[in-house]
């Protein structure tokens, strides 16, 4: 772990001259480890499972439907706002415009939740999102145009002969897998304070990225929009093994919780 970094992006990217070489064996080893962990809990069962960021955080079974709905909408809007920031826009104070843009391309179930939201509740949500985005813009700053970046990066990796699906979405991926050193860093934004669940999510992102590309990322981070706190971890075998074990735990409990 890195203590008190001077700024989020500089801590994430670090010193390019000190990055370790990309190790293809690490990616292959992690896949083998995950397959073994899954076999240990599932055996030969043909059961199909889907693991999602929500199941990794332990949120899929949240009992308060209203709170869950607000949180999902807030998360989606903040994610869209981050894309606006990284696309050169200024979303702070423009949550209404953001809402209109987001709803035009939101997945149908989420768009339906948004449409059903009572007007006063929607107004409160937009005020909170405005505050989140102002904090985010301060934390992110300006990315140099030369940095390769992917926003809203989705992944769907299948393991155990396709019966276990790992779905993921990371708000920002910086760097490239085509260089000789480990260059990729991951940043995800959450709308809750940091905790055990977000730490598991941070590690899960690194696991899925490793399985997807065959190259372990350099670092993985989670930024809490409301508190502007972040947690960064260097990615190594121990972190990836921990994430693989957690996926196996979820599989043992029945997949998407």
């Amino acid at each position, binding site marked *: 772990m890195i203590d008190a970094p001077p700024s989020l992006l500089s801590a994430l990217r670090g010193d390019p001259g000190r990055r370790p070489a990309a190790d293809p064996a690490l990616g292959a080893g992690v896949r083998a480890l995950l397959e073994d962990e899954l076999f240990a809990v599932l055996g030969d069962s043909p059961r199909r499972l889907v693991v999602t960021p929500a199941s990794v955080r332990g949120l899929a079974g949240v009992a308060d439907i209203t709170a869950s709905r607000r949180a999902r909408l807030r998360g989606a809007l903040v994610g869209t706002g981050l894309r606006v920031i990284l696309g050169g826009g200024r979303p702070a104070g423009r949550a209404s415009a953001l809402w209109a843009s987001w709803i035009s391309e939101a997945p149908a179930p989420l768009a339906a939740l948004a449409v059903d939201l009572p007007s006063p509740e929607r107004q409160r949500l937009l005020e909170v999102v405005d505050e989140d985005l102002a904090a985010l813009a301060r934390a992110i700053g300006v990315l140099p*145009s030369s940095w390769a970046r992917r926003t809203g990066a989705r992944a769907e990796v299948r393991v155990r002969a396709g019966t276990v699906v790992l779905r993921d979405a990371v708000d920002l991926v910086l760097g490239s897998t085509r260089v000789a050193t480990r260059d990729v860093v991951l940043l995800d934004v959450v709308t809750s304070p940091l905790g055990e669940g977000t730490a598991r999510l941070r590690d899960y992102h690194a696991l899925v990225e490793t399985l997807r590309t*065959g190259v372990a990322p350099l670092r993985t981070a989670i930024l809490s929009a409301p508190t502007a706190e972040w947690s960064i971890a260097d990615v190594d075998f121990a972190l990836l093994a921990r994430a693989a074990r957690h996926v196996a735990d979820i599989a043992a409990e029945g997949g998407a919780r």
Partner: protein
Amino acid sequence: MSLRVERLTPGTMDRLVADASPGAVLPEGAAARLVGRLDELARGAGTLDAWAIEHAGHVGADFAWTARRARRRVGHGALARVRGGRVASAVDGVADELDDLRARGATGQVHPRSLAAWVHGLDEVGTALVTAAAVAWCAEVDDLAGGVGASWRVATDAVVRSRPGGLVLRARRDLVIPHEGRSVVVRVRSGHPGPSAGPGLRAELAVAALARADGRAPARLIGAWPEAGLALSVDGDEAAVRAGARDLLRAARRLGGARLAA
């Protein structure tokens, strides 16, 4: 005819390009006969592409531009600018591409449902979302192409029209990689490959051969699914081109049948 499925790791693209054999050549007159037959079966205007093959000839719902849908077109233009040395980064390339589209949209001389008209009508938030999506697309494609040396170029789609107002055959292409006198075509897709992804690729292979004056198929057609970390590829041999042509005929028949029923 072989369909290969591989994990998309650094080095995969390089391998797939290096061991591609020269593509098959359509016999003389075969292209015109096939296009004529497809037009006849489809009974009118329409488009046949990999989507139609993968979705059993069903025509998609009404199209509307979104940032995600625009990213490929805008990203292609931006990457071409970067590759041509006109701009230093994908971010600058996307900004220039959007400026050009906006200017074209402002003339009013474009179709109201065109990308230029849509971009012209975007507010700051919408523009930023398209920028972010297109820059991400550029990073994805650049990552893929990075392993195949310096010779790759951004490709335009292969399009064959049976006649004015007739059937349009379209093979989407994102990259063309020349290698020892052959060309390998790469198509970048979203999500995870479905069970019909192979037939979709073969149909695109056939259309790519039909679109060339000499009737030569690409040496290999690679479908890259970066989100799934997978690459599917078909060799441009005669069996694959024939299989692609058969799938196109089936899809045209369904299209024509649906028209008759309507």
